[in-house]
């Protein structure tokens, strides 16, 4: 087993990984940018190494600095978390070249699944269902023929990347040309690669993904599905397991397809095979494989009872994954809500600021994976995910009730969050009945706005001025003269 692991990430996932390390008796090294010098993940680690400026390319995306930090601190292994370099095959290779262990799949597996067009071709060959479409198109003519053949609406999307960048829905032929140009430009900017593919657009599809897990000795199984259809701007905000949509038969077939897909690229460690699911036909189509730990891994942990991060580390250290497919069962129901610093009433634009209040919910079946605390700065440099709120209960109805209560108890001041928005989502009949496609949020909540201040809010605000700050207009919470001010910083970390 490793003695020391460097975590090449920040925020909640860095802390999540460090917790697993601490339980296993492994020392932890945090890395951080100048903007993060007082972040929770830096405080949580045994050691912390400053990488450089706030810009990710100077810090969390800088391969050379990360490997030097690992070597300097005598770490044995690097865990990439999600995002940043987690799906970068060159990074994985560079880590191994430096005689360190990359906690994840092989560089080859990452490379094979990294290109959306290549991986789709690979999956087609392997007999995994994929969305009807074409890759390797070059001229506008090619695209036009392909689109006509598939039938509108179609989706044009970047071959090289994901995350909604370089992606356009085209409803009729007259829109095709402009869509291709826009998508190419976005793809070039985002991935340095303007190749596009075109495929059938499934308007009311669900996003259902299968967690797979394997070791370096050829054992590979799936840990069932996560339903991730509540999305805004092509990004997930609420995930759950089991999916309210799947029958046991389809679940089993999708699981087998995912295991088959992963075995095709000799996969080991944690990975996720994403599918598009058409509720009308119960057909599922391979979308992409994420060759890393997923943001929403906690719902699988709660439902299967397995600690995925712990197993990632043990597998990377060469251990065998001791479970057979029949050992894994789904117990109860888990839901995750991603608490973002963003404004749902204003296009989900990120919100920045200092956390003036940050009260996390507690209680049976409530888990919070958080990267922030009272007094933390939420900057514009990185992803505005404040915390993941995950609940586990006997069944879906009880889990929704538990999540409602937990969201009610989550108090964040200083930045606008999507907490109230998610509470509204959970009260809808569509959500309660599980009828939520990936486009549901934009069609249903276009006009959503938070509650307007009422009489009680007015009274509370005015009274707080009287009793807490008696006429002072400075931020009373951030009172600079209070020695126990939670964010008064004395000195800074130089390591």
């Amino acid at each position, binding site marked *: 087993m490793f003695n020391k692991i460097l975590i090449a990430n920040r925020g909640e996932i860095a802390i999540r990984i460090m917790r697993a390390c601490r339980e296993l008796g492994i020392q932890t090294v945090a890395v951080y940018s100048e903007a993060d010098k007082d972040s929770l993940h830096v405080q949580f680690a045994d050691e912390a190494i400053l990488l450089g400026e706030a810009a990710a390319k100077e810090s969390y995306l800088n391969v050379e600095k990360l490997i030097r930090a690992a070597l300097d601190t005598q770490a044995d292994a690097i865990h990439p978390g999600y995002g940043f370099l987690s799906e970068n095959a060159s990074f994985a290779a560079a880590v191994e070249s430096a005689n360190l262990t990359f906690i994840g799949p092989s560089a080859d597996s990452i490379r094979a699944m990294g290109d959306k067009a290549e991986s789709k071709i690979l999956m087609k060959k392997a007999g995994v269902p994929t969305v009807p479409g074409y890759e390797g198109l070059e001229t506008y003519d090619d695209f036009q023929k392909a689109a006509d053949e598939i039938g509108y609406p179609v989706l044009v999307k970047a071959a090289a990347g994901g995350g909604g960048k370089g992606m356009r829905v085209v409803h009729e032929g007259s829109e095709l040309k402009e869509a291709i140009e826009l998508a190419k430009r976005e793809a070039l900017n985002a991935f340095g690669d303007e190749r596009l593919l075109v495929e059938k657009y499934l308007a009311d599809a669900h996003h259902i993904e299968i967690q797979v897990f394997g070791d370096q000795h050829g054992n590979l199984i799936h840990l069932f599905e996560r339903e991730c259809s509540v999305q805004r701007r092509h990004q997930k905000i609420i995930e759950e397991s089991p999916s309210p949509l799947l029958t046991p038969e389809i679940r089993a077939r999708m699981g087998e397809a995912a295991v088959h897909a992963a075995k095709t690229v000799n996969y080991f460690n944690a990975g996720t095979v994403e599918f598009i699911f058409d509720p009308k036909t119960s057909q599922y189509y391979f979308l992409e494989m994420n060759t890393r730990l997923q943001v929403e891994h906690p719902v699988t942990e709660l439902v299967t009872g397995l600690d995925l991060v712990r197993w990632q580390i043990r597998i990377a250290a060469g251990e065998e994954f001791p479970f057979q497919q029949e050992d894994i069962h789904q117990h109860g129901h888990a839901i995750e809500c991603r608490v973002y610093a963003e404004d749902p009433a204003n296009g989900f634009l990120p919100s920045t*600021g200092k956390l003036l209040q940050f009260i996390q919910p507690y209680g049976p079946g409530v888990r919070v994976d958080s990267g922030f605390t009272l007094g933390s700065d939420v900057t514009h440099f990185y992803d505005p995910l404040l915390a993941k709120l995950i609940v586990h209960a006997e069944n879906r109805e009880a889990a929704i009730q538990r999540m409602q209560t937990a969201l009610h108890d989550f108090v964040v*001041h200083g930045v606008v969050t999507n*907490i109230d928005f998610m509470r509204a989502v959970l009260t809808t009949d569509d959500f309660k009945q599980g009828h939520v496609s990936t486009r549901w949020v934009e069609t249903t909540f276009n006009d959503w706005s938070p509650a307007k201040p009422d009489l009680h*809010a007015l009274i509370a605000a005015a009274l707080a001025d*009287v009793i807490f700050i008696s006429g002072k*207009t400075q*931020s009373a919470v951030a009172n600079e003269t209070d020695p126990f001010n939670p964010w008064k910083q004395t000195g800074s970390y130089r390591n």
Partner: protein
Amino acid sequence: MKTTFGSQNIEVNPSGENFIAVVDGKAVNVQIIRAAHGWMDLLVDGQRVTAYVSSDMAKRWVTLNGGTMMLTKTSGAKQGVRHEHAGGLIAPMPGQIRSVAVSVGEAVKKGQTLLTMEAMKMEIRIQALRDGKVKSVYVSQGQTVEREQILIEMED
């Protein structure tokens, strides 16, 4: 004490051990059950109300029944934006730099305009808080800046 939040006026005054709040000419009795650390447990005309309140300059964050609202104090508070942070002058909101009026090493007087920026369709003047010298200028004309981005650093 009279206060205005947005366009809404409220007056809160002590009355014995309790308070009377007057809104739109209607008076309500407010009793504080307990209050601590930005949190209050109240009886408002006999109804229990639990509120979290934080303040940041003119902004008030209020959470009631799990829902969070933001109010902006438009009277009774010194207007202005907080634009000093870690020795630097920072952008009060996201926007674009319209002009930079000073250069590195220049001596400036308190209140002197250092730069102007445009945000939310307003022109904002960033002024020196005290006499001093410009240590660094981090932005240039036309540049877009994020909220709290450091614009200019001063030395005394």
